[in-house]
């Protein structure tokens, strides 16, 4: 494997070009041979160069002639269907690279927007985002919501299909949350839990009950590692929503 990247253009330097030719020709012949053996197929390669009066041939003259006769015997259409020259081939490569580039850009955009989304959830404002960013962000949030809804539904379904333990209703709001917050676990004996507070459309204006509960029980509700700074999704970026008293 070469260390330096070679520029895809005619090598001006004569000796460099000749050396490259020798190396690459050898490599090319090796590749044809491997392809033929690995896949059990017929093939031939013919190379005309200014360095040799006779063409270099794989496997050999007789073998190549056999393959070529076989080739010529095929109907014209079959011959030309997968026939390609330099121009056509390079065009194909360009098209393929363009496809990959498009996909990569799309993936990168999604990654970018994921960062933005998480930042917005912790209070970064939307003012500096352009229309295109907002559009993509909205799309991404929708995608996430779809997944979340799906997951919630599936969890609720599996929870409701389990045996209901007696005395489940006497638990306090706090411990209900605590148990649920730590992940679903085997769900043994747990009744399906309704969210402690009914968050209506006015969630933005009033301080929901679960918030207070959560603030009072910081460690129980963390999914992992209670020693981290307690950050809540959707902190006060907009001023209007949550009072900053929530943040220690």
């Amino acid at each position: 494997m070469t260390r330096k990247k070679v520029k895809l253009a005619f090598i001006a330097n004569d000796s460099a070009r000749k050396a490259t030719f020798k190396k690459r020709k050898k490599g090319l012949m090796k590749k044809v041979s491997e392809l033929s053996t690995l896949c059990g197929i017929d093939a031939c390669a013919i190379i005309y160069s200014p360095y040799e009066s006779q063409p270099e041939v794989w496997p050999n003259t007789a073998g190549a002639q056999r393959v070529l006769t076989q080739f010529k015997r095929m109907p014209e259409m079959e011959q030309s269907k997968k026939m390609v020259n330099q121009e056509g081939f390079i065009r194909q490569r360009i098209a393929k690279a363009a496809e990959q580039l498009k996909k990569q850009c799309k993936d990168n955009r999604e990654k970018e927007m994921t960062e933005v989304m998480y930042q917005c959830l912790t209070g970064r404002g939307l003012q500096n985002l352009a229309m295109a960013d907002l559009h993509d962000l909205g799309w991404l949030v929708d995608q996430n919501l779809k997944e979340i809804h799906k997951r919630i539904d599936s969890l609720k379904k599996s929870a409701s299909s389990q045996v209901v333990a007696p005395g489940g209703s006497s638990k306090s709001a706090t411990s209900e949350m605590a148990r649920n917050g730590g992940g679903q676990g085997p769900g043994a004996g747990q009744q399906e839990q309704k969210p402690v507070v009914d968050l209506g459309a006015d969630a933005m204006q009033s301080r929901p009950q679960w918030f207070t509960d959560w603030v009072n029980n910081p460690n129980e509700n963390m999914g992992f590692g209670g020693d981290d700074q307690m950050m809540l999704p959707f902190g006060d970026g907009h001023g209007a929503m949550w009072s900053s008293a929530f943040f220690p």
Partner: protein
Amino acid sequence: MAKKPSMGRQKIKIAKIEIKNHLQVTFSKRRSGLFKKASELCTLCGVEISIIVFSPAGKVFSFGHPNVDSIVDQFLSRNPPPNTTTRHLIDAHRNASVRDLNSQLTQILNELEAEKKRGETLDHMRKLASQRKYWWEKPIDELGLNELEQLRDSMEVLKKNVTNQTDKLFVEDKLFVEGNVNPSPFFSANGIAMVDSAEIKPYQMNASSTPPHVQNIGYGHGFF
């Protein structure tokens, strides 16, 4: 969205492949690679090549520079190619267009590599960010029901805000067009030069943590 890591480069035995599916995949990949090498050899060293390959299914693939038939005929007939002026003209013309195509290819491959690197940077950033352990950044499958519901609610709020902000910008643009109100980031982000660029605030990051490079590349109506 992460790709499953492939097996990487494995050393294989050069003998006919047993498993039909593997054989077909190998043929497809190696044939493509073979033509690529041939194409590069032609470009780098200015030689004339023809390669003919039969597929396991019996179809024939061929590559040729300047073209398959002229090389094959030359080989079979053992006659040197006609050395006419017309041929030289045709060759020169073809070589010029091949040169152009090669530089186009090089350019797009460079762009692709740059975007791949950018992707890696973003992945790394996400990895660092997720180490800060905000529970809502965990994969959705790892969240408990209550967490999911909280996250859902936060997301719904965010969605509303995005919609509101979008509407706001839309209205601002209309006002700008009609009555010289400050232009919104809508235009500046898309790179369209608007009047009085001093009014346009540069895009800023307010995030306290390491900000990603969210570039306001004008993707027009959004990328998705």
